[in-house]
């Protein structure tokens, strides 16, 4: 017997996200690989005091037109709604954009906390969390604000910083195809942080362009094994 992981829609898939939850959101930049439908569903659902772990804080709908014709929703909507108390990521706001993204505005008003993490360190902290490791040493950030307050160690004559693992209550991710068991394949650069985050949350929720039957995905091509995936929603567009 297998558990039914397939949900009819994103609203049902995010319904039990509680106030104060730690949420990983896949994707890379403002739109690439972003689980947009799950993000918008979470905005509708309204959970508050969330900690969001994502590479980027999103630019919000207004600024998004500068990046992609027609504009789009991104994680900015969660900040606009005042649902987030803390952001952990590498690009809270883009320097090349006006300082009016929802997260940057909120931060400047002192209403949200930011933990700035170099992008590779972010990926590795998530991988550590996923793999049950206690942390790792990296040379990235030596001599910068990133090393502040962190344990340092010299290994083989080179200085390293100890970085600690990250895990989450929920991961919202985007994949190209899933089979009903939850095996996932991705498309192009929409892969990015999604496979890493899929492995590091207690509950991983994925939106996919296409849902297929077990056996229809080439086992050699599966990137995320189904054991990591808890909920699947097929979305269109």
């Amino acid at each position, binding site marked *: 017997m297998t558990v039914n992981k397939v949900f009819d829609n994103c609203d049902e898939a995010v319904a039990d996200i509680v106030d104060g939850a730690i949420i990983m959101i896949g994707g890379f930049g403002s739109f690439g690989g972003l689980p947009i439908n799950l993000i918008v569903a979470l905005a509708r659902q309204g959970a508050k005091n969330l900690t969001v772990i994502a590479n980027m804080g999103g630019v919000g709908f207004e600024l998004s037109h500068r990046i992609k014709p027609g504009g789009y929703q991104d994680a900015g909507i969660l900040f606009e709604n005042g649902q987030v108390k803390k952001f952990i990521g590498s690009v809270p706001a883009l320097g090349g954009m006006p300082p009016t993204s929802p997260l940057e505005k909120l931060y400047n008003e002192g209403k949200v906390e930011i933990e700035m993490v170099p992008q590779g360190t972010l990926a590795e902290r998530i991988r550590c969390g996923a793999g049950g490791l206690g942390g790792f040493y990296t040379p*990235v950030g030596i001599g910068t604000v990133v090393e502040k307050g962190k344990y340092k160690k010299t290994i083989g004559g080179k200085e390293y910083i100890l970085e600690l693992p990250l895990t989450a209550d929920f991961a919202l991710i985007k994949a190209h195809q899933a089979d009903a068991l939850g095996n996932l394949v991705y498309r*192009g650069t929409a892969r990015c942080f999604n496979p890493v985050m899929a492995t590091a949350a207690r509950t991983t929720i994925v939106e996919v362009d296409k849902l297929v039957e077990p056996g229809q995905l080439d086992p050699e091509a599966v990137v995320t094994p189904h054991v990591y995936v808890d909920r699947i929603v097929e979305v269109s567009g």
Partner: protein
Amino acid sequence: MKSRLDEQTIALRAAREFTDGSVVNLGYGMPGLCANLIPEGRTVFFQSENGMLGYGGLATDAEKDYEIINASDQPVTQLPGMCFFDSAASFDMIRGGHIDTVVLGAYQVSEKGDLANWGRPGRPATGMGGGMDLAAGAKRVIVTMLHNTKEGRPRIVRHCTYPLTARQCVSLVITDLAVIEVTGEGLVLREIAPGWTVPEVQALTEAELVPAADLKEIEL
């Protein structure tokens, strides 16, 4: 007023540094232009931190696929032999020394080659993205930037006053006025924009420049 090089020309000069068969990462903004400017006869494998190796140039409107994008969110073209991977694998590649050259933008570069390229006064929420990883992990760091701020202040300084990306990581700086190599003996002025003199460029630079014995006009 004498003319300075435009961004396209700075990127063209930077692309001349790419050796045949090398793996090159292009940072956010101006460096992205290099993708379309590889010198003829050379093969370059562009790596993008969001998990792609071996992409082509910037896509035309007809070619745009928003799931094949570079680190600046711009759609790029696909080439035979290209591949995709996740962010953790991408940064293993970067930290592990598999990137021959990275081209990054900058707010400031110091005389020792310190790089400041992610934070500036009044914008505490802008992040470093993958810049710190790239600066620490790439074999060679090239900076492309404008020589001066909008207000005319030097960006090539004795000590960076903006938040650092990494210490002593920059090898070569290409600006709208000059090509400058960071060496143990200081900042060597290798090439200079057409029509400009060494004292003129020095006056717009806070750090001391050492004119190369074979100083020449910027060649494209």
